[in-house]
Protein backbone atom coordinates (compact mmCIF):
# COMPACT_ATOMS: atom_id res chain seq x y z
CA UNK A 1 0.00 0.00 0.00
CA UNK A 2 1.46 3.37 -1.02
CA UNK A 3 1.87 5.94 1.73
CA UNK A 4 2.31 9.67 1.38
CA UNK A 5 5.48 11.16 2.80
CA UNK A 6 5.17 14.78 3.75
CA UNK A 7 8.41 16.68 3.55
CA UNK A 8 8.80 20.02 5.20
CA UNK A 9 11.24 22.53 3.79
CA UNK A 10 13.44 24.46 6.20
CA UNK A 11 15.36 27.60 5.38
CA UNK A 12 17.51 28.99 8.19
CA UNK A 13 19.06 32.43 7.78
CA UNK A 14 21.75 33.71 10.13
CA UNK A 15 21.41 37.46 10.68
CA UNK A 16 23.54 38.05 13.74
CA UNK A 17 26.58 36.36 15.21
CA UNK A 18 28.43 37.30 18.39
CA UNK A 19 31.22 35.48 20.22
CA UNK A 20 33.06 36.46 23.38
CA UNK A 21 35.90 34.84 25.21
CA UNK A 22 35.18 35.05 28.96
CA UNK A 23 38.39 33.65 30.40
CA UNK A 24 42.06 34.13 29.56
CA UNK A 25 42.91 30.62 30.73
CA UNK A 26 40.39 28.67 28.67
CA UNK A 27 41.60 26.61 25.76
CA UNK A 28 40.54 23.61 23.65
CA UNK A 29 41.33 21.15 26.39
CA UNK A 30 39.07 22.77 28.95
CA UNK A 31 36.16 20.45 29.50
CA UNK A 32 32.98 22.46 29.56
CA UNK A 33 29.28 22.02 29.49
CA UNK A 34 27.32 24.45 27.37
CA UNK A 35 23.91 25.69 28.36
CA UNK A 36 21.73 27.09 25.61
CA UNK A 37 19.01 29.71 25.87
CA UNK A 38 16.71 29.34 22.91
CA UNK A 39 13.86 31.63 21.93
CA UNK A 40 11.52 31.52 18.95
CA UNK A 41 8.78 33.95 17.97
CA UNK A 42 6.36 33.99 15.09
CA UNK A 43 6.99 36.65 12.45
CA UNK A 44 4.56 35.60 9.74
CA UNK A 45 2.27 32.60 9.34
CA UNK A 46 0.63 31.99 5.96
CA UNK A 47 -1.38 28.96 4.86
CA UNK A 48 1.70 27.01 3.77
CA UNK A 49 4.63 28.61 5.55
CA UNK A 50 5.77 29.94 8.88
CA UNK A 51 8.58 32.43 9.45
CA UNK A 52 10.15 32.43 12.90
CA UNK A 53 12.68 34.73 14.49
CA UNK A 54 15.16 32.65 16.49
CA UNK A 55 17.93 33.32 18.97
CA UNK A 56 20.37 30.76 20.37
CA UNK A 57 22.81 31.83 23.07
CA UNK A 58 25.42 29.38 24.34
CA UNK A 59 27.27 29.91 27.59
CA UNK A 60 29.94 27.50 28.76
CA UNK A 61 30.29 26.27 32.33
CA UNK A 62 32.87 26.96 33.71
CA UNK A 63 32.68 30.35 32.02
CA UNK A 64 34.97 30.34 29.03
CA UNK A 65 32.87 31.71 26.18
CA UNK A 66 29.53 33.06 25.14
CA UNK A 67 28.25 32.57 21.61
CA UNK A 68 25.09 34.08 20.13
CA UNK A 69 23.51 33.19 16.80
CA UNK A 70 20.24 34.79 15.75
CA UNK A 71 18.19 35.12 12.61
CA UNK A 72 15.05 33.84 10.92
CA UNK A 73 13.84 30.38 9.97
CA UNK A 74 11.19 29.57 7.38
CA UNK A 75 9.22 26.32 7.42
CA UNK A 76 7.20 25.39 4.33
CA UNK A 77 4.62 22.65 4.17
CA UNK A 78 1.14 21.70 5.39
CA UNK A 79 0.01 23.60 8.47
CA UNK A 80 -0.54 20.49 10.58
CA UNK A 81 2.97 19.27 9.79
CA UNK A 82 4.41 22.67 10.68
CA UNK A 83 2.50 22.55 13.96
CA UNK A 84 4.01 19.13 14.66
CA UNK A 85 7.59 20.39 14.52
CA UNK A 86 6.74 23.22 16.91
CA UNK A 87 5.58 20.78 19.58
CA UNK A 88 8.12 18.83 21.69
CA UNK A 89 7.63 15.10 22.13
CA UNK A 90 8.00 15.53 25.89
CA UNK A 91 8.82 18.20 28.45
CA UNK A 92 12.46 17.15 28.60
CA UNK A 93 13.35 17.50 24.93
CA UNK A 94 13.33 20.51 22.62
CA UNK A 95 10.74 20.89 19.83
CA UNK A 96 12.00 19.42 16.53
CA UNK A 97 12.30 22.90 15.00
CA UNK A 98 14.82 23.91 17.66
CA UNK A 99 16.90 20.83 16.83
CA UNK A 100 16.74 21.63 13.11
CA UNK A 101 17.77 25.26 13.60
CA UNK A 102 20.62 24.24 15.89
CA UNK A 103 21.84 21.68 13.35
CA UNK A 104 21.78 24.26 10.56
CA UNK A 105 23.71 26.92 12.53
CA UNK A 106 26.05 24.46 14.26
CA UNK A 107 28.75 25.00 11.64
CA UNK A 108 28.84 28.70 12.51
CA UNK A 109 28.99 27.90 16.24
CA UNK A 110 31.80 25.42 15.67
CA UNK A 111 33.87 27.95 13.73
CA UNK A 112 33.29 30.60 16.36
CA UNK A 113 34.34 28.32 19.18
CA UNK A 114 37.47 27.51 17.21
CA UNK A 115 38.23 31.17 16.65
CA UNK A 116 37.73 31.89 20.33
CA UNK A 117 40.01 28.94 21.13
CA UNK A 118 37.54 27.32 23.46
CA UNK A 119 36.09 23.84 23.58
CA UNK A 120 33.59 23.10 20.83
CA UNK A 121 30.04 22.36 21.94
CA UNK A 122 28.56 19.12 20.65
CA UNK A 123 26.21 19.19 17.67
CA UNK A 124 23.28 17.73 19.57
CA UNK A 125 21.04 19.25 22.19
CA UNK A 126 20.81 16.73 24.96
CA UNK A 127 18.07 17.72 27.29
CA UNK A 128 16.28 20.51 28.96
CA UNK A 129 18.57 22.41 31.29
CA UNK A 130 17.86 23.86 34.72
Amino acid at each position, binding site marked *: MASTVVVLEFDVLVERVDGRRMSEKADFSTQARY*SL*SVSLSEKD*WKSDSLVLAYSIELA*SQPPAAKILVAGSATIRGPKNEIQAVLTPASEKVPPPIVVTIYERVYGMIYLLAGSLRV*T*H*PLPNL*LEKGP
Partner: protein
Amino acid sequence: MDTFSGVLRFYSLQEVRKYLKELLEVYEKEYDESSNKMGLLLREEGDKGMEVIMSKGWTKAGSMFVNIEDPEKSKMEVFFQFVTEMKPKVTETEEVLKSFDRGEALPIPEEATFLLYLRRGIPERLIVDTSTPRPEKFSFSGQFITVSDPAAAGN
Protein backbone atom coordinates in the same frame (compact mmCIF):
# COMPACT_ATOMS: atom_id res chain seq x y z
CA MET B 1 -5.87 45.73 -12.57
CA ASP B 2 -7.39 45.26 -9.16
CA THR B 3 -11.19 45.16 -9.33
CA PHE B 4 -11.60 43.09 -6.20
CA SER B 5 -14.85 43.43 -4.28
CA GLY B 6 -14.92 41.79 -0.91
CA VAL B 7 -13.96 41.90 2.72
CA LEU B 8 -10.45 41.55 4.11
CA ARG B 9 -9.55 41.01 7.75
CA PHE B 10 -6.59 42.72 9.43
CA TYR B 11 -5.28 42.40 12.95
CA SER B 12 -4.00 45.92 13.44
CA LEU B 13 -4.52 49.40 12.03
CA GLN B 14 -0.89 49.37 10.92
CA GLU B 15 -1.67 46.38 8.70
CA VAL B 16 -4.67 48.21 7.22
CA ARG B 17 -2.58 51.30 6.52
CA LYS B 18 0.18 49.17 4.96
CA TYR B 19 -2.37 47.46 2.69
CA LEU B 20 -3.87 50.80 1.61
CA LYS B 21 -0.43 52.21 0.81
CA GLU B 22 0.49 49.16 -1.25
CA LEU B 23 -2.87 49.27 -3.05
CA LEU B 24 -2.34 52.93 -3.93
CA GLU B 25 1.17 52.17 -5.23
CA VAL B 26 -0.23 49.45 -7.51
CA TYR B 27 -2.91 51.79 -8.88
CA GLU B 28 -0.47 54.65 -9.41
CA LYS B 29 1.95 52.36 -11.23
CA GLU B 30 -0.79 50.93 -13.48
CA TYR B 31 -2.13 54.41 -14.19
CA ASP B 32 1.32 55.79 -15.07
CA GLU B 33 2.20 52.83 -17.31
CA SER B 34 -1.12 52.97 -19.13
CA SER B 35 -0.94 56.77 -19.51
CA ASN B 36 2.53 56.45 -21.02
CA LYS B 37 1.36 53.76 -23.46
CA MET B 38 -1.64 55.90 -24.31
CA GLY B 39 0.56 58.93 -24.94
CA LEU B 40 2.89 56.89 -27.15
CA LEU B 41 0.02 55.53 -29.23
CA LEU B 42 -1.49 59.02 -29.65
CA ARG B 43 1.85 60.47 -30.78
CA GLU B 44 2.27 57.65 -33.30
CA GLU B 45 -1.15 58.42 -34.74
CA GLY B 46 -0.22 62.13 -35.16
CA ASP B 47 -3.14 64.43 -35.88
CA LYS B 48 -5.82 61.80 -35.71
CA GLY B 49 -6.19 62.28 -31.96
CA MET B 50 -9.73 61.71 -30.67
CA GLU B 51 -10.93 60.20 -33.95
CA VAL B 52 -8.54 57.32 -33.42
CA ILE B 53 -9.89 56.56 -29.99
CA MET B 54 -13.40 55.88 -31.32
CA SER B 55 -12.58 52.76 -33.30
CA LYS B 56 -15.04 50.90 -35.48
CA GLY B 57 -15.65 47.23 -36.06
CA TRP B 58 -16.93 46.08 -32.65
CA THR B 59 -19.15 43.01 -32.87
CA LYS B 60 -21.17 41.62 -29.99
CA ALA B 61 -20.40 37.98 -29.23
CA GLY B 62 -22.59 36.89 -26.38
CA SER B 63 -22.11 39.36 -23.58
CA MET B 64 -18.73 40.54 -24.84
CA PHE B 65 -17.57 42.87 -27.63
CA VAL B 66 -15.00 41.60 -30.11
CA ASN B 67 -12.97 43.60 -32.62
CA ILE B 68 -11.26 41.79 -35.50
CA GLU B 69 -11.27 44.61 -38.05
CA ASP B 70 -9.04 47.20 -36.42
CA PRO B 71 -6.80 45.93 -33.60
CA GLU B 72 -4.60 49.07 -33.39
CA LYS B 73 -7.43 51.54 -32.98
CA SER B 74 -9.43 49.26 -30.72
CA LYS B 75 -6.32 48.84 -28.54
CA MET B 76 -6.14 52.61 -28.13
CA GLU B 77 -9.83 52.81 -27.31
CA VAL B 78 -9.50 50.17 -24.61
CA PHE B 79 -6.39 51.81 -23.13
CA PHE B 80 -8.16 55.16 -23.03
CA GLN B 81 -11.12 53.61 -21.25
CA PHE B 82 -8.77 51.89 -18.78
CA VAL B 83 -6.90 55.10 -18.00
CA THR B 84 -10.20 56.94 -17.55
CA GLU B 85 -11.37 54.31 -15.05
CA MET B 86 -8.03 54.15 -13.19
CA LYS B 87 -7.91 57.88 -12.45
CA PRO B 88 -10.78 57.92 -9.91
CA LYS B 89 -9.37 54.72 -8.33
CA VAL B 90 -6.07 56.49 -7.66
CA THR B 91 -7.79 59.64 -6.43
CA GLU B 92 -10.27 57.86 -4.16
CA THR B 93 -7.70 55.49 -2.67
CA GLU B 94 -5.43 58.46 -2.01
CA GLU B 95 -8.31 60.20 -0.25
CA VAL B 96 -9.02 57.11 1.88
CA LEU B 97 -5.38 56.98 2.97
CA LYS B 98 -5.38 60.68 3.87
CA SER B 99 -8.56 60.35 5.90
CA PHE B 100 -7.22 57.23 7.62
CA ASP B 101 -5.49 59.40 10.21
CA ARG B 102 -8.86 60.63 11.43
CA GLY B 103 -10.02 57.03 11.82
CA GLU B 104 -6.93 56.12 13.82
CA ALA B 105 -7.70 58.90 16.31
CA LEU B 106 -11.02 57.24 17.27
CA PRO B 107 -11.19 55.29 20.58
CA ILE B 108 -10.49 51.80 19.23
CA PRO B 109 -10.30 48.88 21.73
CA GLU B 110 -6.87 47.28 21.90
CA GLU B 111 -8.09 43.75 21.18
CA ALA B 112 -10.07 44.76 18.08
CA THR B 113 -9.50 43.34 14.61
CA PHE B 114 -10.56 45.11 11.42
CA LEU B 115 -12.67 44.27 8.39
CA LEU B 116 -12.02 46.34 5.29
CA TYR B 117 -14.72 46.31 2.60
CA LEU B 118 -13.59 47.05 -0.93
CA ARG B 119 -16.02 47.68 -3.76
CA ARG B 120 -14.51 47.27 -7.24
CA GLY B 121 -11.06 47.79 -5.83
CA ILE B 122 -11.84 50.93 -3.82
CA PRO B 123 -11.79 50.81 0.01
CA GLU B 124 -15.25 51.88 1.10
CA ARG B 125 -15.87 50.80 4.69
CA LEU B 126 -13.86 49.78 7.77
CA ILE B 127 -15.42 47.74 10.57
CA VAL B 128 -13.83 47.63 14.01
CA ASP B 129 -14.56 44.07 15.14
CA THR B 130 -14.31 43.24 18.84
CA SER B 131 -16.18 39.94 18.52
CA THR B 132 -13.41 38.03 16.73
CA PRO B 133 -10.27 37.57 18.82
CA ARG B 134 -6.80 37.86 17.36
CA PRO B 135 -5.08 34.50 16.88
CA GLU B 136 -2.26 33.87 19.35
CA LYS B 137 1.17 34.12 17.84
CA PHE B 138 3.57 31.23 18.40
CA SER B 139 6.45 31.82 20.76
CA PHE B 140 8.82 29.52 22.59
CA SER B 141 11.74 29.81 24.98
CA GLY B 142 13.74 27.15 26.77
CA GLN B 143 17.04 26.20 28.33
CA PHE B 144 18.98 23.19 27.06
CA ILE B 145 22.30 21.50 27.70
CA THR B 146 25.01 20.12 25.53
CA VAL B 147 28.50 19.05 26.60
CA SER B 148 31.97 19.62 25.26
CA ASP B 149 33.71 17.18 22.98
CA PRO B 150 35.11 14.47 25.34
CA ALA B 151 37.91 13.71 22.87
CA ALA B 152 39.29 17.22 23.32
CA ALA B 153 39.44 16.68 27.07
CA GLY B 154 41.42 13.48 26.60
CA ASN B 155 38.61 11.22 27.85
